[in-house]
C-alpha cells in the first residue's frame, strides 16, 4: 500500500502490485452510510405537526429513496464495470527481426536505417540500451531486451563489422564471435479496438517513483488521504483562480478516472455530481494502489495520427522510446505535464508550452518536497528529449497489416484480435517494404505528372516475397502507401495478360517428347472456333505474324498467336490444371481466351503462382505470419514453413531458363538498365487489352516481386508491362542488392549447344551458338549446317516446317 508520509519527504510506493483493500476496512464505512440513511428516514417516528409537514416528509422520503436507488445503481455500475473492466489491448504486429551474422548482405547504412526507425539513438548511454555508436566500418549496438516468440532475450551489446559485401563479423561486448544475433524487431502497427486506443499495460511496481510523485504533486496532492473528493483541493483551485493564476482542476485522480472511465465529457452540474458519487464509491471498494494503477494505464497522453496514445506504458515508448521503468525525472515530468492536455502541450507542435508545463510539474514536485531544490535546478534546464515524431498512426504499412489481419481472422475472433493484446510476429522486411513504397510512390507520381500512360490518377501495387520460403516481405496497396483503404495488392483482381504464359509453356515443356525450348511454333494466322462462343482470333502486340518461331523466342517475345495455338494444341484443361497446381485457387473460365490472360487475378495471387516456379516447382503457400503469442509471451500458434512438390524439377528448370530469356533477349530486356547480366533474373511482362494494365512478375535468387500498374476504373490507356511496370520492378529489386538466380540443375537435364538460326545442334564451327538446357534425350540430334563435325550430311536434316528464319525471309 502507499502512504503519504507526514514528514513531507514525499510519497513512498511499496513494490506490491495493486491489491484489493481489505473488506474489514471498507465495509464499516459503508454501513455507517447505511445507518445514517436509516436514522434520517425511519428514525423520526414522532407524529407530524401538520399535514404540510407530512407531505414534505413524504417528498423527502421519495427523494431520498430515489437518491438511494440511484446511488445503488451507480455502485453496481462502478463495481461491475471496474471489476470486469480489462483494458482492450490491440494485437501488436512486429516486423521480422534482423538477424545479424557474418556474410549477411546488408550494408551498414541499412542497419543504421533500421536502428533509427526503431528509435535507437546515436551515442553511448551507460546503464541503458537502445543506442549505437558508429566507428568507421564498425557499429556498436546496445540491443534492447525483447521477448521473442521462443523466449526473452536480455539486453545485448554487439560489435558488428562491415565490408563491401555486408556484415563481415559479429561479436559480443567482450569481443567474442557470435554466430548469430537477433535485433529487436520493429513494431509495424496493430489491430486496434474501435476507438483506436493504444496502450501498453504496466504494473504499478514498474512505474518509477518520480513519475508517481510528479503526478500526485501536480494533479492531486492529497490523493493518499482523501476519500475520492478533496475539499482542500477544490479550495486551493478556487483560491488560485481568485488570485488570477487561472483555472486549475479541483478534481482528484479518482474523479478524473471516473470521468474517463464511465462518463461522457460534457460539463454539467449533474454529471459533476454523478462523478463525485462514483468517485466516493470507487474509493469505498478499491484501494489507492488499484485506483492509481488503473489511472496510470488509462490516462490519455497524445495522438499519433489516428492512434490514441493511452497510459504511461505506451506514453514512455511513444515519446522516449523506452519502457516506463527507465524514465528519467524530467521525462516523467513531461508525461505528467501532458495529462492536463496532450494537444495543448504537445511537445512536437508546441515545444515551448510543453517545456513550460514540464517545469511547472518539476516546481510542484519541489514544493511538495518530492525532489530537492538542487534536483529541481538541475532538471529544469534539460531539453524535452523526445523521439523524432513517428507519425505512423495505427500502422505505417496499412496494406501489409490488412493482409496479416485477414490471415489472422481465419484463426481468431475479431474481438480477441482487438482486445487481447496478442503479439504477432510477421514476415515484413522493413527494408524491402520501405523501398517498395518509396519507388512505387515516386514512379506513379512521375507517370501522373508526365501523363505518360494516360490521365492522372494512375495506381499500382507491389508484392515482394522470399522466393524460397514464400514469406511475404513487402506489400504496397496503392500510390499512397499510408492510405488505409482499397488494398489493390489483395483486392484489385485484374486481367493478367501474358503473365499467364509461363503456365502454358510449363505445361508444354512437361512433355519433352513434343516440346523443347527450340521446338518451332507456328505464329501464322489463327482462328479458334468453339461451339456457343464467338470465334476467337488472337493478335500479336505488333499486329503481325511471325511464321515459324522457336518456342523460347515465342515466349521471350510474348507472341500471342503462337501461344494461343500452343495452348489449344496441348488443351485448355491441361493448362488450367497447371495453373491450379501453381497455386491459383480461383475458379477459371475454361475458354481459349483464358490462355491469353483473360483471367482476373490479384497481385498476391500472381505472386503465389510465380512463387511455385521460383522455388523449383515446390509450392509454398504465401505467409505473412510466423508466430502468435499471448500478451505475456505464451506461444499460441506457429505458422510453419510448408512446401509441396507440385512439378517435376525438369520442366520448372526449363521454364525458368525461358523466363531468363525474356529478360536477356525478350520483352523484359529493359531490366538491363537495372540489373547486371550475372543476376540472370527471370521474369515476364504482362499487358492487357487496350493497354489497361501493366504487369511485371519475376524473381532473382532470393526474392520474387510482382508489380501491377493501372487505373481503378479500368480505363483504356497506353500502359505496357515493359514501359510502366518493369522500371518499378527493376528499381525496387536493384535497391535490395539481389542474389543471382542459380537453380540446381536437376538430374534429368542436360545442356546442349544449339545453333540459334537452325535450332539444331551446334559445335565450334557455329558462331553465336547457345548452350540451352534440355530434358535428357530431347535435344535435337541433327547438326546445324554450320557444324564442322564430320559425317553428318546437311541434307539429312529432318524438318517438318521451314526454319523460322527461312519463313521470315520467305514472306
Amino acid at each position, binding site marked *: 500500500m502507499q502512504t503519504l508520509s507526514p514528514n513531507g519527504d514525499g510519497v513512498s510506493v511499496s513494490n506490491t502490485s495493486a491489491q484489493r483493500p481489505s473488506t474489514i476496512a471498507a465495509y464499516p464505512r459503508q454501513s455507517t452510510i447505511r445507518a445514517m440513511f436509516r436514522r434520517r428516514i425511519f428514525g423520526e417516528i414522532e407524529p407530524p405537526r401538520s399535514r404540510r409537514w407530512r407531505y414534505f416528509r413524504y417528498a423527502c422520503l421519495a427523494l431520498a429513496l430515489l437518491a438511494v436507488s440511484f446511488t445503488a445503481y451507480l455502485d453496481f455500475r462502478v463495481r461491475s464495470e471496474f471489476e470486469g473492466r480489462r483494458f482492450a489491448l490491440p494485437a501488436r504486429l512486429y516486423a*521480422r527481426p534482423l*538477424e545479424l*551474422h*557474418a*556474410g*549477411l548482405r546488408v550494408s551498414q547504412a541499412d542497419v543504421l536505417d533500421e536502428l533509427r526507425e526503431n528509435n535507437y539513438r546515436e551515442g553511448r548511454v551507460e546503464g541503458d540500451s537502445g543506442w549505437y555508436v558508429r566507428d568507421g566500418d564498425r557499429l556498436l549496438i546496445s540491443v534492447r531486451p525483447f521477448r521473442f*516468440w*521462443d523466449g526473452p532475450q536480455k539486453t545485448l551489446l554487439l560489435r558488428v563489422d562491415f565490408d563491401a559485401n555486408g556484415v563481415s563479423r559479429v561479436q559480443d561486448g567482450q569481443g567474442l*564471435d557470435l*554466430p*548469430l544475433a537477433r535485433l529487436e524487431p520493429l513494431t509495424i502497427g496493430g489491430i486496434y479496438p474501435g476507438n483506436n486506443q493504444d496502450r501498453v499495460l504496466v504494473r504499478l511496481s514498474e512505474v518509477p517513483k518520480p513519475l508517481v510523485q510528479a503526478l500526485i504533486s501536480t494533479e492531486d496532492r492529497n490523493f493518499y488521504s482523501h476519500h475520492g473528493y478533496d475539499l482542500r483541493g477544490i479550495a486551493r483551485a478556487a483560491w488560485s483562480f481568485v488570485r488570477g493564476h487561472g483555472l486549475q482542476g479541483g478534481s482528484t485522480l479518482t474523479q478524473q478516472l471516473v470521468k474517463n472511465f464511465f462518463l461522457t465529457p460534457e460539463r454539467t452540474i449533474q454529471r459533476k455530481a454523478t462523478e463525485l458519487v462514483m468517485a466516493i464509491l470507487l474509493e469505498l471498494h478499491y484501494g489507492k494502489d488499484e485506483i492509481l494503477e488503473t489511472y496510470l494505464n488509462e490516462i490519455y497522453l497524445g495522438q499519433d495520427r489516428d492512434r490514441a496514445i493511452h497510459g504511461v506504458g505506451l506514453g514512455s515508448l511513444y515519446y522516449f522510446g523506452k519502457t516506463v521503468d527507465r524514465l528519467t525525472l524530467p521525462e516523467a515530468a513531461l508525461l505528467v505535464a501532458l495529462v492536463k492536455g496532450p494537444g495543448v502541450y504537445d511537445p512536437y507542435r508546441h515545444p515551448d508550452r510543453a517545456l513550460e508545463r514540464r517545469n511547472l510539474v518539476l516546481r510542484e514536485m519541489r514544493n511538495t518536497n518530492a525532489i530537492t531544490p538542487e534536483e529541481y535546478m538541475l532538471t529544469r534546464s534539460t531539453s524535452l528529449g523526445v523521439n523524432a515524431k513517428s507519425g505512423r498512426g495505427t500502422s505505417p504499412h496499412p496494406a501489409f497489416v490488412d493482409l496479416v489481419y485477414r490471415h489472422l481472422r481465419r484463426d481468431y475472433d475479431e474481438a480477441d484480435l482487438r482486445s487481447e493484446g496478442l503479439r504477432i510476429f510477421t514476415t515484413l522486411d522493413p527494408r524491402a517494404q520501405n523501398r517498395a513504397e518509396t519507388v512505387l510512390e515516386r514512379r506513379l507520381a512521375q507517370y501522373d505528372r508526365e501523363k505518360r500512360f494516360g490521365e492522372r490518377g494512375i495506381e499500382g501495387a507491389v508484392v515482394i516475397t*522470399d*522466393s*524460397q*520460403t514464400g*514469406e511475404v516481405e513487402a506489400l504496397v496497396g496503392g500510390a499512397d502507401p499510408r492510405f488505409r483503404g482499397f488494398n489493390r495488392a489483395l483486392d484489385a483482381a485484374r486481367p493478367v495478360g501474358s503473365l499467364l504464359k509461363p503456365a502454358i509453356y510449363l505445361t508444354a515443356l512437361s512433355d519433352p517428347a513434343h516440346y523443347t525450348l527450340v521446338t518451332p511454333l507456328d505464329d501464322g494466322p489463327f482462328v479458334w472456333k468453339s461451339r456457343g462462343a464467338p470465334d476467337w482470333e488472337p493478335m500479336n502486340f505488333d499486329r503481325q505474324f*511471325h511464321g515459324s*518461331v522457336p518456342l523460347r*523466342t515465342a515466349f*521471350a*517475345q510474348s507472341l500471342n498467336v503462337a501461344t494461343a495455338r500452343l495452348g489449344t494444341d496441348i488443351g485448355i484443361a491441361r493448362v488450367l490444371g497447371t495453373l491450379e497446381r501453381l497455386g491459383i485457387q480461383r475458379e477459371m473460365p475454361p475458354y481459349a481466351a483464358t490462355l491469353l490472360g483473360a483471367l482476373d487475378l490479384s497481385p498476391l495471387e500472381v505472386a503465389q503462382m510465380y512463387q511455385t516456379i521460383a522455388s*523449383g516447382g*515446390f509450392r509454398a503457400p504465401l505467409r505473412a505470419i*510466423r*508466430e502468435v503469442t499471448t500478451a505475456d509471451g505464451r*506461444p499460441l500458434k*506457429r505458422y*510453419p*514453413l*510448408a*512446401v*509441396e*512438390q507440385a512439378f517435376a*524439377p525438369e520442366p520448372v*528448370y526449363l521454364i525458368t*531458363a525461358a523466363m*531468363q530469356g525474356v529478360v*536477356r*533477349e*525478350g520483352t523484359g*530486356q529493359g531490366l538491363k538498365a537495372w540489373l547486371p*547480366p*550475372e543476376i*540472370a533474373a527471370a521474369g515476364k511482362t504482362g499487358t492487357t487489352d487496350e493497354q489497361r494494365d501493366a504487369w511485371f512478375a519475376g524473381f532473382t535468387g*532470393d526474392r520474387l516481386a510482382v508489380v501491377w500498374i493501372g487505373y481503378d476504373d479500368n480505363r483504356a490507356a497506353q500502359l505496357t508491362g515493359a514501359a510502366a511496370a518493369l522500371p518499378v520492378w527493376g528499381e525496387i529489386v536493384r535497391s535490395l542488392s539481389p542474389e*543471382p538466380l*542459380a*537453380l*540446381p*540443375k*536437376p538430374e534429368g537435364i542436360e*545442356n546442349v549447344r544449339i545453333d*540459334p*538460326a537452325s535450332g539444331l545442334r551446334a559445335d565450334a564451327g557455329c558462331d*553465336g551458338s*547457345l*548452350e540451352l*538446357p534440355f530434358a535428357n534425350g530431347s535435344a535435337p540430334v541433327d547438326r546445324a549446317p554450320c557444324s564442322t563435325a564430320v559425317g553428318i550430311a546437311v541434307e539429312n536434316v529432318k524438318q517438318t516446317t521451314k526454319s523460322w*528464319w527461312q519463313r*521470315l525471309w520467305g514472306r
Partner: protein
Amino acid sequence: MARRCAAVLAVFLSACASSPKFATVPPPPGSPFPQPSYTESPAIASLMRDARAASESGQPANAAALLERGLRIEPRNPRLWQELSRVRLDQKDYAQAESCAQRSSSWAGGDNALRFENWQLIARSREARGDAQGARAALDAADRLK
C-alpha cells in the same frame, strides 16, 4: 554513286542478316545456371546444433522454428531441409517430411550420401502413411545411389 549505293545496301543486308527479327543474346559468361553452393557457416551450424538439442529434449516445434530461421538465411542448404524433414517426421507430419526431403535432394547436387539419406526419410514417411509400395520404391531409389 553506285559504289555508295552498294555500300549502303551491303550495310543494310548485313544488318538484316546478322539481326533477324528477334535478336538472340547469349547468356552471360559462365553457365546460366551455376551450381548452387552452400556453406556450413557458423550461423547455420549454431542453429542446427540448437535445433538438434531442441529435438532431443522433445521440443520439435522449437527445433522446426530454429531450422526455419536457418532456411531464411540459407534457403538452398540441403542439410537444413533434411533436418527439417527429420523434425517433421518426429512431429508425424509425414507429407511435409517427404516434401522437405525432396527439397533437400533438389539442392543436393552430387552429394549422393545426402540424397541416399533423403530417400530413406521419404521411405519412412511413406511407410508411416501406410504406403508400403511407395516406401519400397523410395528404398529402391536409395539403393541405386549406393
